[in-house]
Structures are given as structure tokens and as C-alpha cells.
């Protein structure tokens, strides 16, 4: 990554009397894939539409440091893929070439570049098919080819895989990742899917209620969420009230429920009563105490066992409520059932402390 490709300042989108999106400063770095992650209704699509100058928004956009004034010229430097493919009633090749046609490219040039774009998303063999005869996955690949064919400097992808079945979606994500990374494209990917954000994002912006609450590398966002709502959205199910009992140079001791927990995370400035965040994936379950570097080990009672997809969610009582995620196989091997006794452990490096109240 080098400098800022796109920068938005004081970006506001107002609907009626409601401010639906607000970004005081938002930048997309050259060469990165920035994932905008948020729940439905958070304003992700609205933010992207505002960044692409496709809806009225106040504020300033700077592209490579230059203020955007000619919206059409700006849009000819970007590409946008929406959730629905929105193809024209033409052939696949003609659809992929439409952006170049609008830019006045010669027939030969646009066909050659459209063919190249179709090849990059793995559907060059469909070039002469009518767009209306395609499956959902094929149609969405055409819309990606259409967006990349003119060679945009910046690609916006607004939940492009949301309507696809799982295998098609996985294949499309892999193709997109190859196309984006292979050409060192700068991309902004809107998604509500944490795995998608983790797979494709160099950085992740968590958008809640129209505001960017946190923008950082995925590992940072997922390990140290900025506030309890971000923590909740990125899947940190254990958000527990704690009391700081001791702070040493490299450890913080907390009372959580009836237990003492040690963490390397420092309490937020001046907070004696922070919230302790702990991702369920970071909790290890065993039948007895294990010799490990985990400083926190607690005898626990299994309260509930809930299968969730390929994993199992275990709700525990270990003097404080704790949720752990294990694979289905682990759950079977450990014979996890309600009221069984287990040992729950996690490393001191894992808990993350947040102020109890969000600071604006």
C-alpha cells in the first residue's frame, strides 16, 4: 500500500431529517482491499453510493489528492458492482464491454478488453451467450468483468456475493480475490459477512448506525474491537463487566463474576470497571486441567450445547458466564452435554478491555 487513493471529508448523507451516513474522514489507500463490514441497515451501501458519487451527499471527495468536481469523469475512473448483476439484454461480451462503449472505445478495443476481463473472472467461454440465460453466479461474474474491463483505479463491490449459494459464492470470492490481487486493484468491499471481510480485506471498517466505528487491519479489529457494539458485531460474544483489582507492569488482574482473570491488556485510562471482551474461538475446553501457557483456567459447568453450522456453541458457567466455540468433532470427542464438568482456559493475551461506556 502506498498513499491515499480516495479520501472523503465530512461526508454526510441525509434522508428526511435523519443523518444516515456520516464519515468525518475516510480514506482508501492505494492498492488495498478495504472491507466495509456492518449489519443490514448500517448504511454500508449508502456509504459506497456516496463514495461513488451515485447519490446526493455533502462533503468533499479527493481522488489522488485532487478534489472531485466532475462526477462523470470521476465515475469513469471507478467501477461499481452491486448485489444484483443488473445486466443489459445483450450478449455477455457486449455487457462486459458496455463501460468501454460508454467511454467511446473502438469496437475492436472494447471487445478485446472485455474478453480479457471475462477471462479473468473465468467465464470467457460464455462470451456469446445472452445475458438473460445465465445463472446467478455467472451473471454476477459478468458484472464484475464489466466493472474491471475499463481498468478502473478503484473498484467498489457492494455485497456482490450476497445472493449466491455457498459453493458458487466461495468460487466467486476466490475468482474476485485473484482478479483484484492479480491486478493490484484498489477495492472497497461491502459485506455483512465477517469471513468475507477477513478473507478479502487488507483493512476492515466496521460501520454501525451509519458511522465508521473502527478502521484497522482485520486481526486488530477482531482481536481488539473499539467498543462493545463493534465487539458484538465482530463475534466477540463474551463481553463481561469486570473490576480492575491490580495492575502490574505487564499484567492486569480483574475480577469477573466470582473469578480472577489475568490479562496483558491494559485497562482503558481511568477505568476501574471496564468490560472484558473475549472471542469464543479463543476459549479452549478440556476434560481436566491441562499443562499449557494459558494463565486463566476455570472449572466450568456446561449450561447449553448449540450446534451452529460446522461449529458448536458451548455456553458455560465458570463463576461468570462464558461462551466457547469448538468444532463439532471436538464437541463429540469431549462428550459435551449440559451439566457436564469441563475446564475452560484462555491465554492472558486474549482478553481485551474496553471502557464500559462508548466515548465519542
Amino acid at each position: 500500500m502506498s498513499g491515499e487513493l480516495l479520501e472523503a471529508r465530512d461526508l454526510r448523507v441525509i434522508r428526511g431529517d435523519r443523518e444516515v451516513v456520516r464519515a468525518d474522514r475516510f480514506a482508501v489507500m492505494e492498492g488495498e482491499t478495504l472491507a466495509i463490514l456492518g449489519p443490514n441497515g448500517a448504511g454500508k451501501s449508502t456509504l459506497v453510493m456516496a463514495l461513488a458519487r451515485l447519490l446526493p451527499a455533502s462533503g468533499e471527495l479527493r481522488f489522488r489528492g485532487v478534489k472531485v468536481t466532475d462526477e462523470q469523469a470521476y465515475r469513469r475512473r471507478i467501477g461499481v458492482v452491486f448485489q444484483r448483476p443488473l445486466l443489459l439484454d445483450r450478449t455477455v461480451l457486449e455487457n462486459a464491454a458496455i463501460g468501454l462503449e460508454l467511454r467511446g472505445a473502438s469496437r475492436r478495443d472494447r471487445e478485446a478488453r472485455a474478453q480479457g476481463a471475462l477471462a479473468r473472472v473465468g467465464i470467457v467461454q460464455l462470451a456469446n451467450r445472452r445475458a438473460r440465460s445465465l445463472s446467478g453466479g455467472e451473471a454476477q461474474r459478468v458484472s464484475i468483468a464489466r466493472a474491471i474491463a475499463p481498468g478502473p483505479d478503484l473498484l467498489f463491490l457492494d455485497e456482490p456475493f450476497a445472493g449466491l449459494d455457498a459453493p458458487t459464492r466461495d468460487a466467486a470470492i476466490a475468482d474476485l480475490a485473484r482478479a483484484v490481487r492479480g491486478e493490484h486493484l484498489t477495492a472497497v468491499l461491502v459485506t455483512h459477512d465477517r469471513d468475507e471481510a477477513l478473507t478479502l480485506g487488507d483493512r476492515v471498517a466496521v460501520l454501525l448506525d451509519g458511522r465508521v466505528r473502527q478502521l484497522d487491519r482485520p486481526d486488530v479489529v477482531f482481536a481488539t474491537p473499539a467498543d462493545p457494539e463493534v465487539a458484538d458485531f465482530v463475534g466477540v460474544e463474551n463481553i463481561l463487566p469486570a473490576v480492575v483489582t491490580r495492575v502490574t507492569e505487564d499484567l492486569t488482574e480483574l475480577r469477573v463474576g466470582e473469578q480472577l482473570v489475568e490479562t496483558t491488556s491494559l485497562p482503558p485510562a481511568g477505568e476501574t470497571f471496564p468490560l472484558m471482551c473475549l472471542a469464543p474461538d479463543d476459549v479452549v475446553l478440556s476434560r481436566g486441567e491441562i499443562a499449557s501457557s494459558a494463565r486463566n483456567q476455570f472449572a466450568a459447568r456446561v449450561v447449553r450445547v448449540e450446534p451452529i453450522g460446522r461449529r458448536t456453541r458451548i455456553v458455560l458457567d465458570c463463576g461468570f458466564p462464558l461462551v466457547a466455540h469448538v468444532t463439532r468433532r471436538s464437541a463429540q470427542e469431549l462428550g459435551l452435554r449440559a451439566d457436564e464438568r469441563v475446564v475452560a482456559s484462555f491465554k492472558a493475551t486474549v482478553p481485551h478491555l474496553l471502557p464500559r461506556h462508548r466515548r465519542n
Partner: protein
Amino acid sequence: MELIANGLLEAARRVVTLDPDLVDAAAATLVVSGVATALAILTGVPLGAWLGRARFPGRDLFLSLVNTGMGLPPVVVGLFVAVLVWRSGPLGQLDWYCTREAMVVAQYILAAPTVIGLTAVAIQSVDPMLPIQLAALGASSRQVLAILVRETRLLLLTAAMAGLGAVISEIGASLMVGCNIKGDTRILTTAIALDTSKGEFGSAFALAFVLLLIVFAVNALTTWAQQRQATS
């Protein structure tokens, strides 16, 4: 029954021998209605496309007026155009009264609202995200409209056909501003009315047959084009 039988026989003779009066009336019909419809398409499609997309105060009222225009009584249009082109009227210096030009103007006024209104409906039927997608691809407003028109071509063909249908069978306006001059402004509908009033049913039947043939041919051609596009 004999009256009808004789009429049909006379009609067949006139059609087979390409009766000059019949050919003149058919040609005048095709020219007047064809030009009026073509003008209605040329102006009505862009206007309807714009109307389908634009949002401005009074748009609903404007659309209501266009829709009202689809049901304009031809005699009212005839009266309006006749007053316009009357020798002492506002456009009297054009000397268009009792000419094909005046008939084209009257038929244009009858066809245009149909083309405008149906085009607006066709454009409104497009996925509202498609214009945004086109804008995102760098299309100008004009390019967006042109692509939407192309995308809705099947519906626009129906609009054009409805426009032609609104004028090819009308009689009131054409009679009032064209004056039914033989070999010039006499079209199939005005000729049928005249021959019927004179009791010349054979000639009227022949004219009616040709009129029906033209309407059928135009509709068959349009349907073929629609089906060809729909299945391609």
C-alpha cells in the same frame, strides 16, 4: 343479402384490378398516418423517456395530461387544428387547410400522447437500480436514456404500434382538416364514409378491406419483431 353479396363482389373486383381511387386512398393513408406516427415516435420517445425518469414539481399533472391526451376525441383535435390553420387563424399563412400537412398535424396530436405515455410507462418499468448502475459505469444522462430506450424496445414497439393504431382508423380530424379531396387528402377512412353515404357499398367494402389489411400487416410485422427480439 343481395346488397352485401354485390358489395363484396364489387370490392373484390376493385382490389384485384387495383382500382386507382382505392390505390390513391391507401397511399394517402400510409403517407399521412406513417409520417404522423413517425413524428410522434421521434419526439414522443425521447420526451416519454425523459418523463419516465425525471422528477419535477407538476410531473404527476403533466402525466395526467398526457394520459388524457391518449383519449382525445379526433373531432376535437380536428376542430382545434382547423382553427389553427384556417385562413384567418394563427397559422393561416401556412395555407395548410385542406392539405395533407394539416392532416399530419392533427394525427400527430392524436398519436403523440399515446407514444409519450406508453414510453414513460416502459421506462418506469425498468429496474430503478439500472440507471444507477449505468451512471456508475460512467454513462452521461443522455447515454443512460439511450440505453434504457434500447432495453425497453419491445415495450416501445408496442407504444409505436398503439400510436399508429390511434391514427390510422380515425376519421373525424382528417375529414375536418383535410376536406376529403379526391386523389389528395382522401384517405381510406374518409373515403369509406363518403362511399357509404352515397350507397356505394362495393367501393366502401373494398376500402375497408384494404384498411383492415394494412392494420393487420402492421400488427403482424410488429408482433414478429417483438417475438424475434423476445426469443433472441
